[in-house]
C-alpha cells in the first residue's frame, strides 16, 4: 500500500515539472490568410420560339434592357477578383440569328458586348466562356454592370419553320467568380 501511495504521490506531482513551456508562435501569420471562394450561379436565360420570330416584322425581333444589380452589390463589387461567364446558345429554328449581350453601367453606357452568330438548325450548341480579370477582359466590366441588354436579330425570313420539334432559340448563361472574403 505504501508503494502505491508513493507512486500516486509521484504521479500527482509530476505535472509540476511540465509547467510553462511553449513552442514559438507567430500570430502575424494571420495577415497572410486569404479566403477566396469561387461561387457560381446562373445569370440569365432567354427563350424565343420560332413562331414568335416569324410574327415580328423587321430584323430585330427582340431587345430588352433589364436591371442586373447582382454585380453592383457593394460586397461583391468590392471583393470580386476575377470571373468567367459561360454562354450556351441553341438554335433549332430555320433561321440564321444573331444574339447580342451588352453590359451597361448606370448611365446605360456599354461596358462590354458579346455577339453570337447562330446558323440555322441543325447545329450544335454554341458554348463560349468569357474571362474577366486575370488576363481576360477588365474585371471592372463586372463591377460596374448594373443593366444588361439582350438583343436578337433575325437574318433570315419570316415564314420558314424548322422541322425540328418546338423550334426556338435559347440563350443560357452562368457566372463563376472568385471573391475575396478575407485578405
Amino acid at each position, binding site marked *: 500500500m505504501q508503494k502505491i501511495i508513493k507512486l500516486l504521490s509521484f504521479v500527482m506531482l509530476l*505535472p509540476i515539472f511540465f509547467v510553462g513551456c511553449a513552442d514559438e508562435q507567430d*500570430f502575424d501569420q494571420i495577415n497572410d490568410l486569404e479566403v477566396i471562394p469561387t461561387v457560381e450561379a*446562373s445569370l440569365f436565360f*432567354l427563350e424565343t420560339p420560332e413562331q414568335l420570330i416569324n410574327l415580328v416584322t423587321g430584323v430585330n425581333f427582340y431587345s430588352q434592357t433589364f436591371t442586373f444589380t447582382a454585380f453592383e452589390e457593394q460586397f461583391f463589387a468590392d471583393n470580386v477578383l476575377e470571373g468567367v461567364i459561360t454562354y450556351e446558345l441553341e438554335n433549332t429554328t430555320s433561321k440564321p440569328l444573331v444574339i447580342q449581350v451588352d453590359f451597361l453601367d448606370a448611365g446605360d453606357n456599354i461596358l462590354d458586348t458579346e455577339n453570337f452568330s447562330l446558323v440555322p438548325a441543325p447545329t450544335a450548341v454554341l458554348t463560349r466562356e468569357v474571362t474577366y480579370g486575370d488576363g481576360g477582359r477588365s474585371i471592372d466590366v463586372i463591377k460596374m454592370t448594373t443593366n444588361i441588354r439582350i438583343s436578337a436579330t433575325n437574318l433570315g425570313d419570316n415564314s420558314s419553320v424548322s422541322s425540328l420539334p418546338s423550334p426556338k432559340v435559347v440563350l443560357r448563361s452562368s457566372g463563376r467568380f472568385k471573391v475575396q472574403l478575407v485578405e
Partner: protein
Amino acid sequence: MIDPKKFIIFLLLGSFFVHAQNKQLLYDFLEIPQSLLLNPGMKTKHKWHVGVPVFSGIYANAGSSGISVNDIFANDGIDINTKIRERAVFGLSRRDFFTGSFQIDVFNGGFRNPNKPQDFYSIGAYLEWDFILYWPEDLAILALDGNANQLGRRFNIGDLKTRGELVSVSHIGINKVISKELTIGVRGKLYSSILDFNSSRNSGSFVTNPGQNNILSSTLDADIELRTSGIQSINDDNTDLSDLLIKRAIFGGNLGLGLDVGFTYNLNKQTSISGSILDIGFIYHTKDVQTFTLNGAATTEGVEIVLPGDLVNTSGDFFQEIVDEIEELIPFEENDDNYISFRPTKAYGAIRYDFGEPSQNQEDCNCDYRVKDNEIYEGYLNSVGGQVYLINRPRGPQAAITAFYQRRLGKFLNVRTSYTIDSFSFTNIGLGLNLRAGPVNFYILGDNLLSYRNIPDSRYASFQLGLNIISWGNNR
C-alpha cells in the same frame, strides 16, 4: 462586422485559456466549501464559512475539441492557408466545438443550524458566462472553396449551432444529514440573465444543381433562428453599460428559476457514492428580446425571359422580381416574442474510497457534522475515486470520466490529482491544492497540466481558485 481574422484568433486563444464546465477537481473535495455548489448533498464538515467577496470562487475554462493554437500559429514554416485548410476546414467536423466559461462568486457563505446540526444552510450569488460554438463544417467549406464545381453537393446550414449566456445566479440551499448513511441537499436558484443568445435548432441546405432551363439552379432551404436577449440595448450608444449590467445582475434582467439536487450515500465506513444534478432550470426572456428568423425554400436559375409571355414585361425589373420572390419565399424576419431558454443542465456521479491512517477524533460517522466540539476532523489520509460528468449541449450531452486520488499532508494541506478523459483530451491530469491556515482556507485547482509542456498546443485548460474563512467546529 466581425473581423474573420480576429474571430479565428479569439476562438483559438479562447481554447487555450480555458473546457466544458467540468469541475472534476472540485467535486467532492470536502475541504473546500465551494464544492457544495457541485453537490448540495455532499458531506459538509464545517460549522460555517464565509467566502471572501469576489475571491471566494473564481473559475474559468476554455476548450476546443479538435484544434489548438499551435495547430494554426506554430512558427513551423507551413503556410497558414494550408494549415487552415487541412487542420480546420477539412480537419474538424460538425461535432467539434469551441467552448468557454467563467464563474465568479460575488459572495458565498454557509452555516450549520445551531439547533438542528444535521442541517447546513448555504447562500450566495455568482456571475456565470457560458459559451459554445459548434464548428459549422459545411458552411466553413462553402466559405473557403465556394460552391463552384460542387454540383449536387448539399451544404448543411444546420451546422450553425451556438449558444452563450451571461447570467447572475442567486442561490440558497440546504444540506441535510438524513441518516448515518445518507446526506441529501437541494438548492434553489434565481437567475437574472444579463445577455443571452442561442441558435441551436437550425436546419436546411444550399445546393447547386444542373438547371432545368438555365445552366445551373441554386436552391436554398432554410429554417434558421437566432434568439437574443439583452444584446440590443448593449449595442445602443446611449446606454450606460456599467449601470445596465449591474441592474440586470441584481434581478433586473430576464428572470428564471432553477434547482440543484444531490446526495451522498455511505456504502460503508470508507466507501461512499454521490451524485448531483445542477441547473435544472429555465430563464424566461421578456426584456430586450430580438429574434431573427430565416425560414423557407427557394430555387433560382437567374433571370428568365421566356417569350412571348415576358414581352408584356417592359419594365426590365426581372432581377428585382427574382430578389423579391426569394425574399418572399425565404423571409428574413425579426420579432420580439418572449422565449424560454433552458440552462445547460449538468450531472455528476461519483464513487469514493477513503483509506490510510484515520485522524484522531473519528467517530463512526463518516466525516460529517457529528465530530467532537471545536476539533478539526481530518478523516482518512487518502481517498481515491471515480467520477462521471455530463452536460447537456445543443448537439446532445457531452461526457467526461475522471479518476482521482487525494492525500492529506499534515493538517494544513490537501492535495488532489485527477485523470480525466473527455472530448478534449485523453491525457488530462489535473492538480488541486487546498491550504488551511487557521480559519483561512485557500484553494487552487488546475487541470490538463501535461499540456503545459507546450501551452499553445493545449486544446483546453481550466483553473479555479478561492479564498474562504471557515469555522471547523460544530455546534453541538
